[in-house]
Every structure is written in structure tokens, then in C-alpha cells.
């Protein structure tokens, strides 16, 4: 029996002390093999016959709670204002941006705190907002009732000194049989201000809007405060980078810096008489041309686009000015430069100590993180440069991963079939590089 431990796996907080837990397990589990695995720390859960539920062991709980914390951090890192409502419309979760909005606007514009009811807030708005609030409430009810998956509405509210205009997007989610709704608020007042002619007319406004769209996915830019980001927008221009395009050659002056959105750029070092070798990979987490931040204007590497997509770029001189002017940009750049250096040092060790198959798996995963697709167009020649091996080495490694059904490689197109399996096949470097990359992008 287990009177003190009736909790199902979903409510681990009811577990008592470790000693009591161990005693309880030894009462339930008596088999030698089970106890041996328990003593070796190889168990995750015990099934309680009394309650018919699974009880997670403390180590497994801690690990799962760790991944929950990661999800919460990701929720907080979203630049938009987001909250989650339960089936009754009560706010059960908010991200930092939502809480900042509520604090700044004093509850105006449906700024509802955790524990308060969103539907009640829609009823209690002032006369000027009533019609729009009723529309939002009706849409929310339909989403919560499962009658529609998505609802969008524009909302205007009065704030000190003017009006605030934003769009509300409400999406339904189901968890454990209960309906929830995610509410995302996007402020369109700032976008409209950006569109407003400021001396040079509509063309300038639409160019800035295009830059804002093209740069939205770059996490280095997204991490900047709104005012600093807006100032940068004026100096940025959207560009499409295509597979095989060379942005810099070694020894060449860097004319532009690039902030990738959904393209990937390889940094290759070229040693006379040998193949090029990849020393860094930059995607939407960073910037190409970060050496300018160190006061250097010449590129030591070849910057080669290896995944077609969009980016925004800025002239180097302008970038250096902005870098001097903006403390937030400096901080973001220093963090990213550190990540890039770690990647380069890691690559050096990886190229020396790990087998090509594991390196190829690591490289594919790193590329996958930075691109929106599971499919890449790559030639053997290209991959040989990335990994610093001969083409035949790439053929063997790709065939081995294909035999394990982790990838499919046909006519220069690699498709990742089993991401988890590929993570197992990759060398440990991927774990180090991935974690550091994420940290830098916060």
C-alpha cells in the first residue's frame, strides 16, 4: 500500500522525502532485477498497483522539470506579448512581455494579470472599447468551445497621450482533454508610425516595413530593445542570399554585415594546397561580419552561403557607428562573438578527434537548427569542404547514416528522417555547440 504516495506522474510535488520514497519503492518492488536497476539509477518510474498510476522517480522528475523550465524560458524570450487562458477564460500563464505591457498600461487594452478573467475584462472595458471587446470575447468563446481554431481581431484602446492599436490573435490548444487558448498581442501602432511618411514618403515607409519583416527571425536583432532596433532598421536592407554565393573572401574588406533570417552561412578557412575547412556556421542566431566589432575590417575567412534564404544587411561603416552608439548591440555582439569562437575551437577538436560520420551528423543538426526545413541541397564537394575530408569520406559517412535510416541522400538533397537518432549518432560536440548557441541567442 502507498498511503503517502498516491500521486500520479503528473503531480510530482506530492512526493515526500527521498528516504520515504526509497522505502516505499522497496515495498512495491521486490524483484531482484528491478532492485538492481533501481540501485544502479536506471529506473524512471514505478507503477503503484494501489492507485493504478505511474510515480516518477526524483531524478526523472528533476530532468523533466528542467525541460519544462526550458519551455518557460522560451515562452519568456518571445518578443511578443503572450498569455494562456484556461477553459473559463482565466489567465493561467503570461510571458515577460505581457507582464511588462500590463505594468506599463495599467490594465488598459485588455491587459489582464495572471489569475484574472479575460472574458470579465472584456465586459468591464470603457464605453469606447466596448464593441471591440465584445467581438474579442465572442471570438475567444468560440475558440475555447473548439468551434474555431484561430481568431484574429484588431483592437484600439485609449492610453495616456493617445491611442494604442494592436492585433489580438487567439489560438486554441487542447491539453489533457481540457481546452486552453493562447492570446498573442502585436502592437501595430509602432508599425503604423514606421509607415507614416517622415519626409521621404511612402516608399521609405514600405522599405522599412520590408526590412522589419526580413529581419524579424534574426534572434540577435530580436533581442535588442525596441528603440535601438528601430534605429537600426533605417540602416538595414533586405537581401536574398543564394546557395554558393560568397559574401567575403579571405583578405577582402567586409563591405556589409549580414543578419540571416532563414539562410545559413559557413565560415571557411582556406589553407594553401588544401581543401577549405569550415570553422563556423552562422544562421538566424547571429551575424556575419562580427569581426568589425573588434575594430577589424578585413575578413580572415571565406563566408559562403550554404542555405538559400533571406537576410538583412548593413554597410560596415554604418554598422561600426551603430555598434559604438548602442550598448545593447555591443552586449549582443560580444555574446555572439564568444559563441562563434567556442564553435571554432570546438570544430578544431572535433575535426581532429571525431569520425566523419559523427561529424556529418553534428553538422546536419547544426544546419537544421538554423533553417526552416528538414531538407538541404548539398553536393559531396560542398560537404567535403564543410567537414575537411575527401569526397569519398563524405560518401561513406552519408551512406552509413542512410543505412541507419537517419537521413536520405539523393541527387544532392539530404533529408533528415530521424532527428533524435541523428542526435545519438552525432559527436558530443553538437551538444556543446547547441547549448552555447541557444544561450547566445537569448
Amino acid at each position, binding site marked *: 500500500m502507498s498511503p503517502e504516495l498516491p500521486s500520479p506522474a503528473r503531480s510530482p510535488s506530492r512526493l515526500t522525502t527521498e528516504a520515504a520514497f526509497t522505502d516505499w519503492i522497496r515495498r512495491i518492488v521486490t524483484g531482484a532485477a528491478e532492485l538492481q536497476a533501481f540501485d544502479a539509477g536506471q*529506473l524512471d518510474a514505478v507503477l503503484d498497483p494501489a492507485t493504478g498510476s505511474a510515480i516518477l522517480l526524483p531524478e526523472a522528475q528533476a530532468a523533466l522539470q528542467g525541460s519544462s523550465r526550458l519551455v518557460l524560458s522560451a515562452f519568456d524570450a518571445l518578443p511578443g506579448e503572450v498569455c494562456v487562458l484556461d477553459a473559463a477564460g482565466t489567465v493561467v500563464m503570461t510571458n515577460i512581455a505581457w507582464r511588462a505591457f500590463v505594468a506599463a498600461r495599467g490594465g488598459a487594452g485588455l491587459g489582464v494579470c495572471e489569475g484574472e478573467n479575460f472574458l470579465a475584462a472584456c465586459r468591464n472595458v470603457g464605453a469606447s472599447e466596448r464593441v471591440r471587446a465584445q467581438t474579442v470575447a465572442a471570438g475567444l468563446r468560440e475558440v475555447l468551445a473548439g468551434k474555431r481554431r484561430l481568431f484574429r481581431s484588431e483592437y484600439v484602446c485609449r492610453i495616456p497621450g493617445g491611442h494604442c492599436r494592436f492585433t489580438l490573435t487567439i489560438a486554441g490548444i487542447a491539453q489533457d482533454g481540457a481546452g486552453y487558448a493562447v492570446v498573442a498581442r502585436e502592437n501595430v501602432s509602432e508599425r503604423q508610425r514606421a509607415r507614416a511618411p517622415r519626409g521621404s514618403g511612402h516608399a521609405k515607409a514600405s522599405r522599412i516595413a520590408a526590412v522589419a519583416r526580413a529581419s524579424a527571425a534574426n534572434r540577435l536583432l530580436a533581442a535588442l530593445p525596441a528603440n535601438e532596433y528601430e534605429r537600426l532598421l533605417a540602416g538595414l536592407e533586405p537581401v536574398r542570399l543564394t546557395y554558393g554565393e560568397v559574401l567575403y573572401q579571405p583578405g577582402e574588406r567586409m563591405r556589409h554585415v549580414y543578419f540571416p533570417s532563414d539562410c545559413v552561412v559557413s565560415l571557411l578557412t582556406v589553407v594553401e594546397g588544401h581543401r577549405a575547412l569550415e570553422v563556423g556556421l552562422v544562421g538566424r542566431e547571429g551575424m556575419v561580419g562580427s569581426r568589425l566589432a573588434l575594430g577589424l575590417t578585413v575578413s580572415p575567412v571565406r563566408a559562403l552561403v550554404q542555405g538559400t534564404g533571406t537576410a538583412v544587411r548593413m554597410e560596415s561603416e554604418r554598422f561600426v557607428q551603430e555598434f559604438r552608439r548602442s550598448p545593447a548591440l555591443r552586449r549582443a555582439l560580444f555574446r555572439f562573438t564568444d559563441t562563434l569562437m567556442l564553435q571554432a575551437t570546438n570544430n578544431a577538436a572535433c575535426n581532429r578527434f571525431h569520425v566523419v560520420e559523427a561529424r556529418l551528423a553534428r553538422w546536419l543538426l547544426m544546419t537544421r537548427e538554423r533553417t526552416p526545413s528538414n531538407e538541404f541541397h548539398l553536393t559531396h564537394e560542398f560537404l567535403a569542404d564543410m567537414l575537411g575530408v575527401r569526397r569519398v569520406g563524405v560518401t561513406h559517412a552519408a551512406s552509413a547514416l542512410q543505412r541507419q535510416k537517419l537521413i536520405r541522400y539523393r541527387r544532392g538533397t539530404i533529408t533528415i528522417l530521424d532527428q533524435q537518432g541523428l542526435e545519438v549518432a552525432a559527436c558530443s560536440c553538437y551538444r556543446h555547440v547547441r547549448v552555447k548557441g541557444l544561450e547566445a541567442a537569448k
Partner: protein
Amino acid sequence: MARKRTRASAAGAPVTTTVVVMRLYVAGSAPNSLKAIANLQAICGRYLKDGYKLEIVDVCEHPRRALADGVLVTPSLAKVSPSPASNVIGNLSDTRSVLAALGLPAGMLE
């Protein structure tokens, strides 16, 4: 929800190949459960090729099914057929004991 991963024999496989049917009980994405899945898939891919069927049962979703099958802890691997039935407890990092439970000769281990 029970996750099913089934790999049937390839059409051209020799008729003498016996399909090993297994069931792996795991607790969601807890660390030892993930290790057990990865270890078992590596073992199956290497030693059984296509000659196996594997069902993965998440006890967080289906605790009563696991209890009905006589499973008390996870990760836990049960060989269902061919008889005799056998099981291995833990994260399946000991390839030798997994091969033994699956009825494969230890000599297969390099």
C-alpha cells in the same frame, strides 16, 4: 497514447528469419527511458535488422495497461515472442543482457 514502431521483415528476407516481438515500457521522455529507446533501437538495427517488431508503451499515459502486463518499473523491455517470454529492466545499456533476453547468441557481440 501508445507509440507503435513496427518494422516488418523485408520482402526479400530469408524465410528462416524469426521476427522478435518486443514491448518497451517507458515513462514519457524521462532520461533513462530515452536512453533505453536509443539503446534498443541501436541493438535492433545492428543485430536484428528488419526482423523485429517493437511497441513502445508510455506508462504515464497507460499506467493500467503496464500494470495489467505485470510491469512495475520503467524502463522495462519485454520480449513477447518467440517464447520463452523474458524481460530486461533498466536503460538497456548492457547489450549482452539484452541479447540474452532476446534469445540471441552472445557470440554475436563483437
